[in-house]
């Protein structure tokens, strides 16, 4: 009887010890709170897609407006002026021109005019160019904002973001590790890696800045779709084979895979638990979801497209609204996403691969990379 009793007493003591230690800190926090405020949440937050560039520009303008004891202002490039910001950082003021390679630059650079950065230069802080900014091959930048156009040289590497009011050209082999944004357009050459892009027009060479292929929905609707499908007892012809259920009027759930023959016209929202494959010249009026989606060439989709896994879009297809994928998205040559008057998003948790001649009006955002081939 004695031994169990000792055991239970030990148990009680250990319990009380653990409990009282944690309660001590809890009581202290209760009586003398050190963190009794709500979790911070910016109620006024509004998403701005080119926020990095906007906020950096605003900050630099604020710094430039601060008076300096020695009256420093932007000077000749051969004799650049230094300015100390209120946060103690160096701001290098230049009028513009060309910065030759000559080791690393650890200062924030502000250029009043057009600026060219020489081959292989390394800038460890941000650059703000009030004119246009052009980097030659192999430059390494932290971030860059330009009020004019911005061209990133071959094999350049940007650690964070680039933003321009004018057109951005990202040349072969260049890498932007965060966001590239432009108020005008972004042109991507071959073998470019960017984490995300935002612009009224994002295109891969040789598409250039052309807005061809973004015509209105009705005028370019492939003729092959007309009358290609009809309903039978509420169930469209293309759903006669697979096991499917109508979730709501105009929304069908297909359990398993679904293959749509060439020229099929789908007027409903379609949810496919397996792989959805379509032949050439199919048209989709509603929204579409599948575990995996492989669209054939010249497909036209008016609604949104979502896939739990990957999405492959056939060449010269048109998708008027958003694409989301749990893994990768590949857009074949000539694909158009969104419209100039109605921007759209291509979003993938993995990689977005853009073939030549692809154009997106809006945003492309990848968990890993947006990659051009």
């Amino acid at each position, binding site marked *: 009887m004695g031994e169990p009793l000792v055991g239970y007493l030990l148990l009680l003591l*250990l319990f009380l010890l653990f409990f009282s230690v944690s309660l001590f800190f809890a009581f202290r926090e209760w009586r003398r709170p050190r963190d009794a405020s*709500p979790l911070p949440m910016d109620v006024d937050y509004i998403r701005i897609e080119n926020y990095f560039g906007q906020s950096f520009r605003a900050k630099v303008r604020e710094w430039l407006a601060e008076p300096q004891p020695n009256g420093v202002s932007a000077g000749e490039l051969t004799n650049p002026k230094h300015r100390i910001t209120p946060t103690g950082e160096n701001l290098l003021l230049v009028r513009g021109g060309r910065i030759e390679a000559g080791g690393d630059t650890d200062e924030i650079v502000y250029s009043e005019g057009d600026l060219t950065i020489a081959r292989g230069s390394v800038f460890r802080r941000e650059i703000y160019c009030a004119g246009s900014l052009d980097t030659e091959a192999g430059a390494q930048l932290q971030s860059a904002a330009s009020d004019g156009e911005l061209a990133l040289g071959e094999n350049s590497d940007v650690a964070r973001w680039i933003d321009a009011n004018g057109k951005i050209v990202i040349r072969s082999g260049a890498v932007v590790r965060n966001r590239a944004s432009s108020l005008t357009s972004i042109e991507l050459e071959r073998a470019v890696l960017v984490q995300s892009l935002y612009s009224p027009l994002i295109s891969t060479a040789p598409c250039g800045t052309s807005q061809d292929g973004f015509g209105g929905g009705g005028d370019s609707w492939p003729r092959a779709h007309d009358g290609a499908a009809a309903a039978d007892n509420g169930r469209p012809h293309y759903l006669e084979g697979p096991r499917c259920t109508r979730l709501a009027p105009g929304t069908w759930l297909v359990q398993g895979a679904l293959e749509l023959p060439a020229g099929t016209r789908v007027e409903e929202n379609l949810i496919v638990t397996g792989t959805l494959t379509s032949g050439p010249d199919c048209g989709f009026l509603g929204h579409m979801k599948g575990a995996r989606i492989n669209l054939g060439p010249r497909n036209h989709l008016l609604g949104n497209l979502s896939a739990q896994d990957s999405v492959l879009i056939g060449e010269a297809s048109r998708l008027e609204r958003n694409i989301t994928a749990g893994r990768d998205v590949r857009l074949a040559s000539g694909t158009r996403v969104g419209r100039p008057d109605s921007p759209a998003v291509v979003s993938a948790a993995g990689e977005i691969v853009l073939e030549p001649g692809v154009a997106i009006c809006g*945003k492309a955002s990848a968990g890993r990379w947006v990659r051009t081939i």
Partner: protein
Amino acid sequence: MAVAWAVILEAARVVAVLVLVILAAYTYRSLFFALYRLFSPGRMDYTDLAGFHLPFVSVLVPMHNEEAVAEDILEALAQSDYPKDPERMEVIAVDDHSTDATGKILDDYARRYSWVKVLHRQGGKRGKAAALQAGTEAARGEVLVVFDADYVPGRSLLKFLVAPFADPEIGAVMGRVVPHNVGTSLLSRLLDLERAGGYQVVQQARHSLGLIPQYGGTAGGVRRAALDAVGGWDPRSLTEDTDLTLRLVIGGWKIAYVNRAECYEEVPETWEGRRLQIERWALGHTDCLHRHLKPLLRSAYLTPREKLDGVFLLGAYLTAPLIALGWAATAILFFGGQSYLPVWVPFFLASTCFNAIGNFASFFEIGSSALLDGAGRRVRLLPLNVANFVFSTVTVTGALAKYYASRARGRTLAWNKTDRHRNGNGSANGNGDAYSNGRGLNHIKARAAAAGMQRSMRARGMDS
């Protein structure tokens, strides 16, 4: 007598084992969710689509005697960046049998903003589900977003909340709820911790794992076509949110959770308010268990994993009486001389006993959420959540006894409203008592901003 005692002991043994098995299952589930959130990347959550998918939204705000808060939520919606185009957004404020100035406040807003419509309900069944049903009949939107009157949606919340509806399989979307009246009482601080665990860990883990995130009835949206397909709101339900969650998933729809769609809410500050709240939740939830368990298990649209998660979800409130039953059974076994512990076991049991009170599993969930939110300091308060835990266990056990008694007598259960702690006739414009008492919209924003500033100073090591 001896035979009866032997039967009692045997029954206690069976009950204790049963309770242990069920609670262990919940424990491992909580642990798994917390560890998953701490160490696994989240699933893509549609946030990239915010602002690019803008369906026609009808915002429904049911209100019963909400003069203290009505103005704040309408003002917050007026400041929303969702396009106020007549074909993009409308707000339907439902004045549900109010006897205070709620109706007048709503009418004033309807005069000021063309996109605000007011429904005055003075007849028919009272309660949130009935009010929502009336609002839904008047709504024209493709997506219905619901807010309780005490909520303060941020300017971009609607865009984040409706983004997942670009996926045609999504029937409902739930945002994250964050208490703003933290620090007004110990209870509000404990509930803040509990909410963080529930959303940052449990809801997000369910979403990422493809399970069943719960549509919470407020700061959430539902697709109109999906709602109609499953029969609309059920006015009989005390927890229309759980009821709808189950009907949607059983009917083949999915539910998404968007952690980024954060919204401030007011949590109960008094234990009596808390009692009424969890009593209603327990009654409604258990009613859902009885109505939806079989259809859930038979649904052709759900995977076995989803079904298991659904069972856990439905049975959540049964854990309280099970714990109480477990306490009783183990006490009987202990005092009945049924302990066969070797001497060295107490050391092992000391830690498990401590954990059994709650410093593990569900508390671990809360601690993990504090880490994920970067709010490590508030977690020191966590052991005091034992009080909340015991209080909930007792209240839910009592509520379920009431539920089964009412069920046996064939009676329906009454709906009760959660108390609001803001006062005065609205406070959005910063005038009046409510503002000076520090409970208005501007005050909430200021507190949130101050908390953010404090956090960033702490991160820079500038905290005194």
